[in-house]
């Protein structure tokens, strides 16, 4: 008789199962448009040249050892990471009311934020506080908040499937009608999975409605492109006087996926509130992972704090962003040239790594089973999976799926 005989087999995480199926597929022209990791035009992972450079620096620096980092992480990492999202001259930083916790990737940052909120927001241990996540959202958001104990994780309207764009009216409507003290999880840019972001004007409207109710805001992720442009929404909210948490990931923009580099930036009303918040976050960290891993944080810190390396990094980021933009414009052009039914403007209107194609589950199934093109059931594709070599095949296959399968 075993203690674990009743443990059920859990379903695998969809996105990883997709990659597994892709790996097992023998078809020579298979394409993986699943997992969100950057790929070169040869379909290969890309270690950023600046990262390779900095890793060499680290390996040869005899002064470095493997001692524990402080519980909240490497101090220079935390401050330089917060600076890139808020801006070097952010008034909040100058007012000493910005702090941060180094975490294990964006997931880890969300986790610490969620655990803190459950303990200290809206009373104490209030698991009934509604947590609003966009419809749709990154599939792990739900699990992060529910595993932190929140019982009421619900969607706010976001993606308009018919017009293949932002459902602003629905979004604002849900903001206006939400219970007091709800928490909203906002994607700062490059919305995952839709790639659809509010415009600056739309962000202003969103901020205005929130100002009225003032629920706490919580930002996940941070993608490529211009740092200032990508961080515009966050900075706007900060300058509007919001307190917030910002969960940053360096997985994609530094290509440091497996080093688990993330930062939870905290913008508080003042230094005293900040201090108390960080002291409690420290307690949460201590019972979760004690202190964070040093390698990735070192790489990011050395890069961000050296003007030369920082420029080089920005160039590397542009390289990735530009390839994605190129694939977007080429895919749209090819679909239009094929006369594929429907409008395909959303492919170039959307931003970041992902695109919500608008393909329905049946069409997706067709692509996976008949064409060996792997994408999420939601119709989400990773633009990085496209290359100049496979884009024709993908465009033609999408054309087939749309015309053959309703």
């Amino acid at each position, binding site marked *: 008789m*075993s*203690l*674990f*005989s*009743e*443990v*059920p*087999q*859990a379903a*695998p*995480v969809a996105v*990883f199962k997709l990659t597994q199926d892709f790996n097992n597929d023998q078809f020579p022209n298979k394409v993986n448009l699943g*997992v969100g*990791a950057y790929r070169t035009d040869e379909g*290969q*992972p890309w*270690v950023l040249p600046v990262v*390779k450079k900095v*890793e060499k620096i680290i*390996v040869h620096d005899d002064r470095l050892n*493997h*001692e*524990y980092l402080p*519980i909240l992480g490497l101090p220079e990492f935390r401050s330089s990471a917060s600076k890139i999202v808020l801006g070097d001259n952010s008034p909040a930083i100058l007012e000493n009311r910005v702090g941060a916790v180094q975490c*294990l*990737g964006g*997931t*880890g940052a969300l*986790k610490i934020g969620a655990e803190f909120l459950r303990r*200290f*927001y809206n009373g104490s241990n209030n698991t009934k506080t509604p947590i609003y996540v966009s419809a749709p959202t990154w599939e*792990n958001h739900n*699990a992060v908040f529910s*595993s*932190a104990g929140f019982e009421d994780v619900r969607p706010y309207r976001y993606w308009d499937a018919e017009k293949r764009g932002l459902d602003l009216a629905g979004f604002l409507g849900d903001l206006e009608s939400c219970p007091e003290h709800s928490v909203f999880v906002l994607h700062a840019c490059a919305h995952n999975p839709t790639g659809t972001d509010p415009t600056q004007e739309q962000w202003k409207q969103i901020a205005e409605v929130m100002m009225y109710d003032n629920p*706490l805001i919580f930002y996940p992720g941070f993608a490529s492109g211009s740092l200032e442009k990508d961080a515009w929404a966050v900075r706007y909210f900060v300058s509007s*006087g919001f*307190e917030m948490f910002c969960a940053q990931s360096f*997985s994609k923009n530094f*290509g440091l996926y*497996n*080093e*688990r580099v993330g930062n939870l930036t905290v913008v*508080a*009303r*003042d230094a005293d*509130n900040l201090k*108390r918040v960080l*002291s*409690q976050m*420290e307690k949460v960290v*201590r*019972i*979760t*992972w*004690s*202190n964070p*891993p*040093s*390698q990735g944080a070192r790489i990011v810190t050395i890069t961000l704090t050296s003007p030369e390396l920082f420029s080089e990094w920005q160039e590397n980021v542009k390289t990735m962003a530009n390839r994605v933009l190129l694939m977007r414009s080429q895919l749209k052009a090819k679909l239009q040239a094929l006369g594929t039914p429907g409008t395909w403007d959303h492919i170039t209107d959307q931003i970041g790594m992902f695109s919500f194609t608008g393909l329905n589950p049946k069409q997706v199934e067709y692509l996976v089973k008949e064409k060996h093109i792997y994408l999420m059931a939601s119709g989400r594709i990773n633009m990085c999976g496209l290359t100049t070599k496979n884009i024709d095949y993908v465009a033609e296959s999408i054309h087939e799926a749309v015309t053959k399968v309703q």
Partner: protein
Amino acid sequence: CTRYSWWGGVQMGPPDPILGVTEAFKKDTNPKKMNLGVGAYRDDQGKPFVLSCVRKAEAIIAAKQLDKEYLPIGGLAEFSKACAQLALGPENEVLKSSRSVTVQTISGTGSLRIGANFLARFHPGPHDVYLPKPSWGNHTPIFRDAGMQLKAYRYYEPSTCGFDFKGALDDISKIPEQSIILLHACAHNPTGVDPRPEQWKEIADIVKKRNLLVFFDMAYQGFASGDIDRDAWAVRHFIENGHNIVLSQSFAKNMGLYGERVGGFTVVCKDAEEAKRVESQLKILIRPIYSNPPVNGARIAATILNTPELRSLWLEEVHGMANRIIKMREQLVAGLKKNGSSHNWQHVIDQIGMFCFTGLKPEQVERLTKEFSVYMTKDGRISMAGVTSGNVGYLADAIHAVTK
């Protein structure tokens, strides 16, 4: 514009007692000051020690120019396999029949956390975790936060500064069936007091009689006696004895990989099919915490464990670290004897691993800190790693001064 803050009601968190020791130490200007608080190994110059096998492994890894793609949720496969083999022995029947699962974790803390979460969700018996009295300070908050209840069994005997074997057996024999008992595999933290093999055998028997789930915490394999097999003896004995244990391992100390966060969590199951089910659930627990673990330290550890010359070098170096600690213990006691101390300090030599429960009382600890700038935790625990041939004499003088 003064506005309301969401965090007005958040209290300042209590300071960490051990970190507090280090903070005070840093501020002290006495050139003879000693930090015997935190548990990280120091060489005989009092400096952090990066193992040669680690540097060599890093060079090998750097040359391979590997990518940075996400690891699987359960971590680097070569690491998890080697981690399990290190603990259980490569020929262990459990490994041969694939009836265990090992996931890579964020060092020992992360391993305990995942283990606690797993038990909270799936353990069919009482959710009571029995810790030895005393235990590592972070055990309680970890299990509590996961939703488990904490209880204790007698362990440390203050009058002998040794193992309260009778008390332990007595308490364990009364633990309700199917409860969870946490055992330190070797180098008990904070006391340094370990059961002898014959005592472990009796503990294993009574634990079996009570049908308890055994949670082994092994943070110091190799670091205690200097011999990895000897340090894993209790874990292996329990398995041989028919216990399907759960096990946390850390490579922070024995490979000096502290900040890289390298650890493993193992569940020994009935059979391979059960191990697969358990593995799938561990992944579900891991994903919403950090998605997948950091690669750097695990690659270093795997390279060391799986490369024969590096593995041999590692075994030598870990033996060296353990030996230095043992020597410091002997020198401290010799120093105390030389000073004419009338107390019995045998426990300093009998205890094992990084820590030593000196038996000093809080007032004596306070005097040590105030008068001699010797920093340690209030419970009288010292980290032997902070003792060097250069300062052991001073320490012996200081301890003698406050205890004579």
